[in-house]
Each structure stands twice: as C-alpha cells, then as structure tokens.
C-alpha cells in the first residue's frame, strides 16, 4: 500500500535517509524501530508529506504523493506530542477536523466514547492535561476510518486504563486488515501490537521481516532480547539483513 523508492533526504550536511527502500503492505502491522536519530521520524514525516525528499519517491495506493494532498485522507496520524490551538474547545477541534474531510460522513467514535471525550467538549484545549491531549490525538487519528494508521509513540503519557483501551482499538483495526505503522520504544507494546519488525539504522533498513523470523534469526524466543541482539549487531556494523 505504501512503497518508498530510493528515498534520500539530508538536513544540511547530515544525510538522514540514504537511498531508502521499503514497502508497507495492507493487513500488516509494522513496528518501526531504531535508535534516536536513525531516521524514523523523517520517514514518517516524508510519508505524511511534511518533509519533502531530496531524491526518490513515495507511492501510496500506487499514486505518487508528490504535489498531491488528497492521498492524506487515507491516513490517520497520531503525533507523539499533540499540540493544538490553546483557545479552542475540544468539540470545536473535532468539528474542525471533520470540516477538513467533508466527504467522510461516517465517523469511528469507539475511542471518543471509550475515553468519554464528549464530557469535555466544552473545555478549552489549554486546560487539558498531557494525557487527555493524547487521548484526543488518538481519537482524532481513528475518527475517519482511515486505511492507514500512523501512530508515533501512541502509549506515551497515557494512564494504564487508557493504554489498554487504545491497544484493544489497535488490535481491532488490525483484525480489520488495516495497515498500521507504530513507532515506540516500549518493546512490550510493540510485541503485542505488531507482526512485522522494521529496524532502521543510520538511514538504512537494517532489518525488515516478520517478528517470528526475527526471533528465529537471533535464536531468541522473546521479542526484547531479540531486539537487543539486533541492536548489538548494528553496533558491530554488520551488513544489513535483507531477507
């Protein structure tokens, strides 16, 4: 569904993505991992069209995203830290987002109801706590039944109850064969929510295969030690493992 073709991007002298190739296909849930500064965020922002690549191309549903803005209606994005206009109310934020996608009439209100967001409709965004803002971000990402979900550190800042609600919602969307991309440093979450691991190191894909084959390859039967081993290999500068 998303194919990233020989994408290169530099910020000043620093080359963040180097001739980057990757394919995300529908029905899978991807864990995007990598150390800080490896290019995860740049990859996600390139897919969303916030970062414009120097070279290469991204295709979503076989359409190039360059100079295109309509493809974003297929994407639900939950930012790591959502910041919203401080003086507008929660209800207004929701109607504004709905106004941006006037063609969608059928909304997915699972999270709105589970997080009881109608109760705070009249509250200004500036009065909300960090966790509540995350709940709003999550509810907005799922609101339009998007085919692609991009979740950047989705559980950071959420309380345990909200985390479980969000996780079961993600599991539900997985069962509905949506394409889901999750970045997180919480490995237990990733193990629960994803079936495919992508490890990015220094702007290149270091590992891209199912979590089961990652476990086979590293001869570990748990996810965390398998990732730890992968990280050690990157430090020893092993060649990328492309299966």
């Amino acid at each position, binding site marked *: 569904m998303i194919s990233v073709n020989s994408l290169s991007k530099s910020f000043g002298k620093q080359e963040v993505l180097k001739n980057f190739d990757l394919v995300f296909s529908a029905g899978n849930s991807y864990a995007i991992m990598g150390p800080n500064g490896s290019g995860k965020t740049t990859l996600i922002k390139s897919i969303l069209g916030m970062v414009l690549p120097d070279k290469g191309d991204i295709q979503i549903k076989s359409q190039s995203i360059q100079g295109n*803005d309509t493809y*974003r209606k297929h994407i639900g994005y939950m*930012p790591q830290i959502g910041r*919203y*206009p401080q*003086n507008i109310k929660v209800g207004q934020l929701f109607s*504004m987002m709905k106004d*941006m996608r006037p063609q969608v009439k059928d909304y997915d209100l699972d999270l709105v109801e589970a997080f009881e967001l109608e109760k705070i409709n009249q509250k200004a965004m500036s009065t909300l706590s960090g966790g509540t803002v995350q709940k709003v971000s999550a509810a907005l990402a799922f609101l339009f039944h998007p085919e692609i979900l991009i979740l950047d550190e989705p559980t950071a800042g959420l309380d345990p109850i909200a985390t479980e609600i969000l996780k079961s919602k993600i599991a539900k969307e997985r069962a509905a064969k949506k394409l889901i991309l999750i970045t997180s440093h919480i490995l237990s979450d990733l193990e629960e929510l994803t079936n495919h691991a992508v490890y990015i190191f220094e702007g290149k894909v270091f590992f891209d295969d199912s979590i089961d084959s990652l476990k086979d390859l590293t001869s570990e039967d748990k996810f965390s030690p398998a990732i730890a081993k992968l990280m050690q290999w990157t430090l020893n500068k092993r060649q990328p493992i492309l299966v």
Partner: protein
Amino acid sequence: MRKLLKYALYDILKSRFALIYTVFLALVAISTYQVTEDMSKVSLSLMNILIMIVPLISAVFATTHFYNNLEFIELMLAQPVRRSQVFFSQLLAVVCMLSLSIILGFGLPMVLWGADSSLIMLLVVGIILSAVFTGFAFLASVLTRDKAKAIGISLALWIFFSLVYDGLVLYIIYTFADYPLEKATLAMVMLNPVDLGRILMLLQLDISALMGYTGAFFKQFFSGNLGTILAIGTLAIWILVPNYAAMSVFKKRDF
C-alpha cells in the same frame, strides 16, 4: 480554506494578547482625545504612536504566533488540505486580528468623539502596515528554524524601516543638498512602507507645507490621481511581495 480560517481566527481572537492590544490602543486613543479638541492634533499624535507601535507589535506577534502554532501547523499538514491553504489561514487570521484591534481600539473613541478624513486614513494606514509587517514576520519565520532568530530578524526589519532608513535618507539629502532631490526623495520614500504610510497621513492633515519645498512637491505629486494610485500600488506591492515569498518558502519547507 474558509473553515480553516474560521477556527484559526476563533483561536486568535480569544487569545489574551488580542484583548490587551485592543485595550492598549483604546487607552492611547482615549487619552489623546482628552488632551485636545483639535482633530488634526489628535490624528497627528495618534499617527506618531501608530507608525511606531503597529509595525513593532505586528512583527513580534506574528513571529511568536507562527512558532507557537508550529505543531498545530504540522498536524494540519498531515490532513488532506493544501499547504497554501494552511499558510493563508494562519496569515489571514493574524492580519485580521491585528486589524480588528486597530479598528476597535482607535475606532470606538472616534465614534464617541468624532473623526475626520485623516483619522479614517489613520485606520487604513494601520491595517496596511499590519499586513506588511506580518508578511515580514512570516517570511522571517519560515526562513529560520529558531524562534529567537526569527524575532531578531523581524525586529531588525522594524528598526531599519522605522529608524535607520530615515537617517539614511536625511544623510543623503544633506550630502547632496546642492542637487535637485525631489524625485530621488520620492523614490526613496516609495522604498519604505512606513514612510509611505506617514506621507499618506501627513497629506490628509494638510500640514505638508511644514515639510518645506519637498513637502510641497509631495503634495503636488500625491494629490494627483497618479500619485495616489502609485502610493497605493506601491503599498500593495509591499504587502504582496513578502507574503508571497513567505508562502513559496512555506510550500517547500520541511516540518
């Protein structure tokens, strides 16, 4: 676009800054009206304040607003809307808020205590200068990645056009005092939106005679149709060029 603008405007009008700015302008206007009954004196005093304050506030506020809204701008860019629409909604919201503050802050006292054509022109000049300096501020904001640097550039432009530029013009006039400088001065005035605003005001006040021979020349030039068209056209260019440049950079910028 209209919907984006609606929410951006709603957010900005409810900000504390909008209220403080309006009240400040209203207090300035009210106290000026208390001092004198003479309309031309009122508008001259208000002009001197407006010419200094409006560009300063516009430059600083627009820059801070852009950077405070950066995360939200990013979120909007992840939605199916065009980049130019996101940019225009933010820009228009800032210009509308600044203009509305001037219209209410200066306009209400005018409704209460009367106004003449020069005071109406004052409002127009205030709105034009807000738009010009918001353009400068947005350009500085999209070109840098650092709030402090962007505010620095905006302030530098304000200092240049409000203070330094006049010094340079005076220096040139004194140095080349032996030559006929009317047309050269006119050209130099055109290159500074603040001066252009001031001239438009002074001509309304009919005190251009105070400015000597050059003033008389300006009067002759600007009173004609050609002069007014040229002055307004030049101000329009001063609004369009920085804003358009800011938009083209915004379209190609990484967030």
